[in-house]
């Protein structure tokens, strides 16, 4: 899938740039994109490394248990095959809790470990399991309680009520998550 997306985007871009006369801009985009992505990785590196270390302390201290105990009844119903493996379930619950709190940088390493464990469970196949689909769909939807970035941006553009959009955000993201998960479950069954 990713192979087709990658090839498709690049091929379409080349064709379009010829028609629109943006070939120079396209060449710049390649150079800038490569540079920009490394800059992003460097920006991420500090936070990702820091959070991984902090979360390791939290996890060793037993904070993980607390989070997963609250979320696991929901997760057990969503993930059919991992329920025997409490370690994966705990990673998933922690990933979801971190996402809800807006700690995206903390959520990613937890989620990556969860997916790695799910792959081990599937016998190292290169095909996504049902649980992986549910998990990734959950991570492509936003389940943030407090969208800090948007609120900060609104404030800096002199909004008279930067936080007034919160109820709308909650309703929209809950509906989006519900549709994504329902569709994933339906398509898996087929």
């Amino acid at each position: 899938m990713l192979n087709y997306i990658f090839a498709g985007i690049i091929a379409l871009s080349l064709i379009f740039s010829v028609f629109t006369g943006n070939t120079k801009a396209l060449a710049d985009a390649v150079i800038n994109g490569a540079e920009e992505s490394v800059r992003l990785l460097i920006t991420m590196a500090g936070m990702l490394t820091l959070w991984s270390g902090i979360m390791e302390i939290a996890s060793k201290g037993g904070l993980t248990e607390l989070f997963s105990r609250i979320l696991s009844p929901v997760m057990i119903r969503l993930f059919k095959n991992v329920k025997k493996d409490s370690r994966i379930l705990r990673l998933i619950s922690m990933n979801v809790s971190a996402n809800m709190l807006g700690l995206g940088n903390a959520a990613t390493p937890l989620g990556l470990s969860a997916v790695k464990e799910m792959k081990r469970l599937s016998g190292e196949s290169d095909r996504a399991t049902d649980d992986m689909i549910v998990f990734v769909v959950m991570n492509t939807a936003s389940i943030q309680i407090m969208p800090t970035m948007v609120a900060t941006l609104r404030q800096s553009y002199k909004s008279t009520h930067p936080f007034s959009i919160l109820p709308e955000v909650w309703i929209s993201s809950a509906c989006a998550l519900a549709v994504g998960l329902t569709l994933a479950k339906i398509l898996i069954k087929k």
Partner: protein
Amino acid sequence: MPAFIAVVVIYGLIKKVPVFDTFSSGAREGFKTLYSIAPTLIGLIVAVNMFKASGAIDFLCDKITPAADYLGFPKEIVPMILLRPVSGGGSTALLTDIYKNYGPDSFAGEVASVLAGSTETTFYAIAVYFGSVGIKKIRHTLIAALAADFTAAVMAVLTVRLMN
């Protein structure tokens, strides 16, 4: 965030966790993770940049505007709806552009805010999670995830229209 870190470290100390050793070993894992996602990320960001620069995204927007009008989407946010699942940085750039031109409290500004707050960078999440463990057959993931994104866009317009 600093409070969260302090709470975790002090909590760890109380629970008799060797906090710095534990931190180091966890942090090492985090750095390894970064190393494994770097190639995927670089490839995808270059592809998205090419897509934007070639004018393909503008062409798509022009095609979609009549449909957007029909659905009651403000046309100012159409490029953002299209870019949101693909590029986090790109859609943030479009969001600030909308704030600058129409104001954060305008209809378009509020819809764009709700959209940004209730969605994630779908392609990035898929690439990171499946890319890191070498999953090639992603089955229905993309369809379900994009349906969620579309729902968020429809709901952003609806909620802003009905709740203000």
